[in-house]
């Protein structure tokens, strides 16, 4: 019944609302029952109820209806916020999320009855009337103007979507009218033939018992127009007069049409109410399919390639025809094209970027849950969540972050008792911060817990057979910490792992490295630890150092290039059959690029060009045939057919249309690089 696009829109908004509710519940727990927050949750739940009902997801509609009822009580003050209540609320939200997944996976197993019972258990089973009937039992009630509250407004809004019009109608009966209740009944009957009465004043019961003067009023939803409505009622006997006014819901809703992809005004609450800065901004947005952005990005990539080709062409042209008007024109055009395409590149990159908040949002809840389970008290501070990341990066970074945070809660922060004994405040602090540093994103997770002891790591590494005693005594503390990321290294005492097989930290590192990022650990035993993650701003276009190998052109990603040097063949020394060269007093291991590819021979030459690659402390020098220059290149993956090609990170299209290969510098450094100072000086 509903198209994929409509379901997709529904799911996206559902996700947003779930997020809002989760965050708000956290605030409730921290700050108590603030009316603004309760209202926020109420609205979100109500919206979900409405749209899921329209879409036909009955379980979701029922669950959110129960949430709504509970929040109605919170709102009216007949229910108080308590930890027990918050727990139930989170349980309900978890169930809601399961229902969300059910929709995506097209399954249907979730049972909502249990959680509904729990929700209801928080208040007595007494139907709360949302209609403002003056329940004075026996008294006569006059038809005061109807109050239109949020709920009613929502109902009107939804009705308007399907073509109904709302009216406020006041009916005055003849003063000598007998059997007022019968007249009223007839009025209702007539109106309900073509519409629906959603509210009446006085309440329906009172009207049925004749407990009103001469008039009553109601809210009517109907497709008929004003005159039809009027005439319908006036035709009933003993009606003195009627007053009909059309009503319309205020335009504040987020959900307008389902058809258009362009949204209307969206009101976004940027900060929680307690932050002192209540900024409500109107942001005009357009929902764009991610695929379209990816296509745009590809096209920009093509532009970069052509830009390079044009540059080359300009050079050749100038070389042939010298400078002059024609050459100048071409240079001008080329420069302008370069500028514009560069700007385009930047803008599209930005369009693909999302605030890192998207990933950070789930974390406060995670911290709360795990901390509770382990009886720890933790303050979780998030900074810089508006920092933006490429969408693809955001998708990948979630898992590692969850793992690192869980680790900090589980093993970093001590129990309140331990902390007191150590002279620390009972409540531990974990700070998650995102910021830009140079041309990268830096995410740090800092805790003030027990830190990590290098000696412990060394001991464990030896026990696991990753190091022998001799090495353990030689390596520095910094190097020892690296073993935390080693495969198979996991100690329940120091790092948590996902499945008990010691696969935790190394997976985190490889996930991050897969997107060309890096993660490092610094720590002060007893005081805490910090994990620093660095990520590139975009995955597709990088700066590279181009080198020649025989007829080939090979690219080294510039972030791994430390420097380039020229040496003579006689500068090469040997340590145990390995070629090395001494650079500024330090020993640098060498490899020949041709050998990396296993089927080419380097050209012999009087001058040898070396590209020094480095990452962290490790260095390795790669002998190439010639250096070409720095260039921005578009990374093209090899595709699913070839998958991972060992030694290579991808391919690129060169200025002349040939294919260039990109070296997997990271792996190369890891496997052949040596830390400064590990070798004593040669000779």
């Amino acid at each position: 019944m509903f198209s994929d696009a409509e379901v997709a829109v529904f799911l996206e908004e559902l996700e947003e609302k779930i997020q809002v509710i989760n965050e708000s519940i956290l605030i409730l727990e921290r700050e108590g029952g603030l009316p603004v927050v309760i209202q926020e949750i109420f609205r979100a739940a109500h919206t979900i109820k409405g749209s899921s009902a329209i879409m036909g997801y009955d379980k979701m509609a029922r669950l959110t209806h129960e949430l709504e009822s509970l929040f109605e009580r919170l709102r009216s003050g007949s229910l108080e916020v308590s930890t027990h209540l918050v727990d139930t609320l989170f349980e309900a939200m978890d169930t809601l999320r399961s229902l969300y997944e059910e929709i995506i996976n097209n399954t249907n197993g979730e049972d909502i009855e249990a959680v509904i019972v729990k929700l209801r258990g928080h208040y007595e089973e007494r139907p709360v009337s949302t209609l403002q009937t003056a329940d004075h039992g026996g008294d006569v009630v006059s038809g005061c103007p109807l109050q239109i509250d949020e709920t009613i407004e929502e109902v009107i809004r939804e009705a308007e979507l399907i073509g109904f019009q709302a009216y406020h109608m006041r009916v005055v009966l003849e003063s000598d009218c007998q059997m007022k209740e019968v007249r009223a009944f007839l009025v209702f009957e007539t109106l309900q033939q073509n519409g629906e009465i959603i509210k009446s004043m006085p309440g329906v019961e009172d009207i049925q018992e004749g407990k009103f003067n001469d008039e009553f009023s109601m809210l009517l939803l109907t497709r008929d127009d004003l005159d039809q409505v009027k005439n319908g009622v006036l035709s009933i006997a003993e009606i003195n007069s009627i007053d009909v006014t059309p009503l319309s819901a205020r335009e504040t809703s987020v959900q307008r049409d389902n058809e258009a992809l362009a949204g209307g005004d969206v009101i976004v609450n940027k900060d929680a109410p307690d932050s002192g800065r209540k900024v409500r901004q109107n942001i005009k947005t357009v929902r764009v399919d991610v695929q379209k952005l990816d296509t745009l990005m590809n096209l920009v990539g093509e532009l970069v390639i052509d830009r390079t080709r044009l540059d080359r062409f300009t050079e050749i042209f100038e070389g042939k025809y010298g400078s002059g008007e024609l050459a100048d024109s071409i240079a001008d055009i080329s420069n302008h094209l370069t500028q514009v395409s560069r700007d385009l590149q930047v803008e599209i990159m930005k369009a693909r970027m999302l605030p890192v908040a998207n990933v950070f949002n789930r974390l406060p809840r995670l911290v709360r849950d795990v901390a509770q389970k382990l009886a720890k008290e933790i303050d979780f501070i998030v900074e810089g969540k508006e920092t933006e990341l490429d969408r693809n990066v955001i998708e990948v970074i979630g898992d590692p972050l969850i793992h690192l945070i869980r680790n900090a809660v589980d093993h970093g922060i001590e129990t309140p008792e331990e902390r007191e004994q150590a002279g620390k405040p009972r409540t531990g602090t974990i700070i998650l911060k995102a910021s830009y540093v140079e041309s990268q994103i830096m995410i740090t997770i800092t805790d003030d817990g027990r830190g990590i002891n290098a000696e412990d790591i060394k001991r464990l590494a030896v026990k696991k057979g990753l190091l022998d005693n001799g090495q353990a005594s030689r390596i520095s503390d910094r190097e020892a910490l690296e073993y935390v990321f080693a495969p198979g290294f996991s100690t329940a005492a120091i790092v948590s792992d996902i499945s008990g097989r010691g696969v935790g930290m190394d997976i985190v590192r490889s996930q991050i490295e897969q997107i060309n990022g890096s993660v490092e650990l610094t720590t002060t035993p007893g005081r805490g630890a910090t994990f620093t993650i660095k990520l590139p701003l975009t995955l597709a276009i990088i700066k590279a150092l181009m080198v020649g190998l025989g007829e080939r052109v090979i690219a080294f990603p510039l972030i791994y290039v430390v420097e380039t040097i020229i040496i003579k063949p006689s500068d090469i020394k040997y340590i145990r059959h390995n070629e090395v060269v001494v650079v500024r007093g330090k020993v640098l291991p060498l490899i020949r690029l041709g050998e990396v590819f296993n089927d080419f021979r380097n050209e012999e030459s009087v001058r040898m060009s070396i590209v020094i690659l480095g990452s962290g402390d490790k260095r390795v020098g790669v002998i190439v045939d010639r250096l070409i220059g720095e260039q921005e290149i578009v990374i093209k993956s090899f595709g699913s057919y070839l998958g991972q090609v060992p030694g290579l990170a991808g391919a690129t299209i060169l200025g002349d249309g040939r294919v260039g290969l990109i070296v997997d510098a990271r792996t190369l450094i890891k496997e052949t690089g040596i830390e400064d100072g590990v070798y004593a000086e040669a000779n």
Partner: protein
Amino acid sequence: MKLMSHDQEEQIVVFRLVDQIYGIEIGAVIEIIRMESITRLPGTPGFVEGIINLRGRVIPVIDLRNRFGLAVLGVTTDSRIIIVETVDVTIGIVVDAVAEVLRYSPSGVLPPPAMLDGEGTVIIRGIILDEDRMVILLNNENILGASEVEDLNRIQAEKLAV
């Protein structure tokens, strides 16, 4: 090809590898290009020739002659690269010559003979007898099977690392 009544006719692109005739479903063929320089990749299985630039896309190219254990003749002016695509995988196949587009009816496809060199059987969907020649119908899904190449890559890399 004699038309069998009521049969849906399919079309295949017929090409030659050394002295054998093969066919591949036309729906899978994106284009046919002349031979161009192929950038070789280290550490990939023997039948992976390398990669080419197809209007900005990097496309892997394989040599079925190598795959089927046929003696490779080398490149001639008739050599072509057939670009084949399924849902999300695109590759190029080096062939010695492209002959024609042939109509055939699926009911006329004979099952592949049981005894073929091991690698070949999964790739061959059947045999079509067309007048005086035998056209070996390829199973395009299996040629484009992805993980196989990656596995082979890995095995290769592990061997070299020793």
